[in-house]
């Protein structure tokens, strides 16, 4: 039997560089196609409306990355998306399709605004820590019931988390008007947070702030945790091979519970960072659908951490450049929405189509008489 042992057991430790490169390449391949298709669709829209697509795209790139201030704006816009994309990817890795990050983001934001406005007496680091911690807990709380329903009674998480978004956002907006309304404000908004609780900008007076650093740390933590922790391993196993995981005695219920809860915690932290770093308070319309855009980014990146960073910057660039580019050219304001929407559609499609093909191949064995 020994002659069978041609195996290169040395390969176990693996070369880390090659491995990472392979993952980056895979990420680029998966994300490149949807983005390319979106650019073509957007180009057609521009051409039809009498614009030169190349000129407008060139302008978009310049507005997004043209100088240090533009890059700063793009990174600021990417920051909340980093949080929500990691939150979504965290759950999706376990095969759990929560869409509740939006609700957690909003509740986290409100909590941070309320707590942050009353911690002025604390030293800045402590004030920020306390505020972000409470935002994180609030985000988790928004996901706790769907997590329990799914893990304990197998209630479909897509439905429960979607419904909980309505409940949570409704409760948040109502409680602002009922309890936290700042006097003298026309629209419903809380008071501004104490200066000690603000996340300082990285390059004042621009908007990108310490929240970006926190987001990057979260992405890195996600990457390491999935690869190196016991529960992270179980996440990947349950997401990839549920029956196998069951037969191996892996903690399938715990994985499902933690997946939904964890997505909520990260979403809440993201909302908190957005409140402390950019908005400095909570107003209705606090989240520009960051939770849903995060889903698209997570799918586009195939849950790959580097892909998530690239995807968040891409969507951040569209948001920041789209806002200013209209000042110079007469392009339809909806162009940015069309581009984002197209990327999302094809991101989801490119994620779903390989699965669909796999199913079709399995079915091809039997010829329908």
């Amino acid at each position, binding site marked *: 039997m020994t002659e069978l*042992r041609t195996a290169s057991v040395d390969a*176990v430790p693996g070369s880390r560089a090659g491995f990472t490169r392979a993952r980056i390449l895979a990420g680029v391949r998966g994300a490149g196609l949807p983005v390319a298709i979106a650019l073509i669709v957007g180009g057609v829209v521009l051409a039809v409306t009498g614009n030169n697509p190349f000129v407008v795209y060139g302008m978009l790139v310049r507005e997004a990355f043209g100088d240090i201030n533009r890059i700063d704006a793009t990174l600021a816009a990417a920051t909340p998306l980093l949080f929500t994309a990691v939150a979504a990817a965290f759950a999706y890795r376990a095969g759990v399709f929560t869409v509740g990050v939006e609700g957690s983001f909003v509740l986290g934001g409100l909590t941070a605004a309320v707590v942050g406005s009353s911690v002025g007496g604390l030293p800045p680091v402590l004030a920020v820590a306390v505020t972000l911690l409470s935002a994180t807990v609030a985000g988790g709380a928004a996901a706790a019931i769907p997590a329990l329903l799914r893990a304990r009674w197998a209630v479909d998480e897509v439905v429960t988390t979607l419904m909980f978004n309505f409940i949570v956002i409704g409760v948040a907006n109502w409680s602002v008007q009922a309890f936290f309304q700042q006097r003298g404000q026309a629209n419903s908004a809380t008071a501004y947070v104490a200066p000690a609780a603000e996340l300082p900008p990285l390059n004042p007076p621009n908007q990108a702030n310490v929240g970006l650093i926190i987001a990057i740390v979260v992405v890195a933590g996600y990457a390491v945790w999935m690869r190196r922790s*016991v529960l992270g*391993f179980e996440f990947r196993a349950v997401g990839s091979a549920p029956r196998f995981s069951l037969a191996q*005695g*892996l903690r399938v219920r715990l994985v499902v519970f933690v997946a939904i809860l964890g997505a909520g915690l990260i979403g809440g932290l993201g909302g908190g960072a957005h409140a402390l770093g950019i908005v400095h308070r909570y107003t209705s319309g606090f989240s520009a659908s960051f939770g849903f855009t995060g889903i698209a980014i997570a799918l586009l990146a195939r849950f790959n951490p580097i892909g998530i960073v690239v995807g968040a910057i891409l969507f951040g660039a569209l948001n920041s450049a789209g806002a200013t580019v209209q000042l110079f050219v007469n392009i339809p304001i909806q162009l940015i929405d069309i581009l984002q929407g197209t990327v999302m559609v094809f991101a989801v499609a490119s994620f779903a189509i390989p699965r669909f093909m796999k199913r079709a191949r399995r079915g091809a064995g*039997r*010829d*329908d008489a």
Partner: protein
Amino acid sequence: MPILSPTTPAADPVTCRIGARGVSRAFGSVRANVDVSVTVRRGSVHAIVGENGAGKSTLMRMLYGLDAPDAGAIVVDDADVTFSGPRDAIARGIGLVQQELAIIPELTLLENLVLGAEPRAGLVWDRKRALADARELAAVVGVEIEWDLSAAHASIAVQQQVEILRLLYRGADVLILDEPTAVLAPAQAAELLRLLLSLRAAGRTVIFISHKLDEVVEIADDITVLRSGRTVASFSRGEVDRAGLTELIVGDQAVEVRDEAGRPAIGEAVLVVDGLSAADDRGIQRLSGVGFSLHRCEIVGVAAVAGNGQEELAEAILGIRDCSSGSILLDGVDLTRETVRGRRRLGIRYVSADRKREGLGIDLSLVDNAIASSGLSRLGRAGWLRRSTVDARVRAVLDRAAVRFGTAKDPASSLSGGNQQRVVIGRETIDEPRVLIASQPTRGVDVRGIGYIHELLRQARDDGAAVLLFSEELDELHVLADRIVVLCQGRVAGTLPGDAPRAEIGRLMLGETATTPTTEEEGR
């Protein structure tokens, strides 16, 4: 669309409606069919019998054009034909009902019946006419079908009837059925057999594969026996009884020799199963009061025809299937309420018959596959995996089973079937298990790989495991098992010594004393 247009009755009984003339087919070194000849008379019910791997399915696939012979020819209406695909076979009036039914659950039974050949009324399909056709068709063959029922809510038996009617609707007059009764409860099987007989009465030709020799002897006009890819005998009705068939099916091939040299003596009882009952996913009772014990350094074989409760037994012991009554004791501790995780911690290990979905995470890397088990927490500290410990573990697992692989980061799907199974067995035997449940461990593994997997199982036994080996291959049980527990219809039909004659095992498996399919009150 003609509904059961009159076919020529069996005017000339020797006419070969469909058959094979000296057909051979090899897959690599495996010779699935060797010089097989079959003649199926027009208007007859023809049974093909043989062990798993005897070449029955290969032959059926060639008759339906899903595969082509290397030598010899398929015969249709007394002339050699070459099918380039199922389309050609369908054009010649041949239809196949596979074990996995091609029914679309989202549609109604009526829609399933006419799908792809809907009667049209302008731009839409003519539901009224379809329904009239369906009723007429069902009446001719004597079944009653609730046509507006969604297929998802219909029983397997009804879905199967619809699939048969669909072939008739498309104009097939030769129906090939691959183990049609394997998935049915006894009463449903009896109804299917009646349906087959009424098809014959309507002039259709039926070929069916079956392991249930009772029903074969009962309804077949002709019987062809395949063994190791060859036709070993052909009979007409009444020329052979079940005992004779059993003997022909199992044959007296030379077997791999038992290797008992230097093995430790069988030890104390480790696992005691008592009065275990369980139902399958559809709620059909599959295990009824099964009891046996399993000793240290012993391999107990479980022999049963597919669908007689062996899967449920394996799953119940592992804990992925609830049992309705009975108990499972490991070293005197009752496991019945224990989780899979708890049972694994106590030393139960499992080699699944469903390697691709349950035995392995097929898209996960070999590293992930090698470490997956409840013992994960020992591979690191405080919830984190330690790289050096993980690597050592992976190396030990892959080494133990001499897995041939590229790098450990490759997905399990990159390995051959035999190598995949080695990963599974390596992982499941690395911790000196108390109990190893091995379910069809050599299914889909080539001959060379089989010998090595047998060696791994012997090694686990010698290391002190109590091994419960489920196998459809009697050869496998013969070379490995110290005792053989035979299951039939969810009960222990008998326990035999490991070297019991094949015919004796076969008799118990085929339920010599059990009710015949024509008895109505058995089952539901």
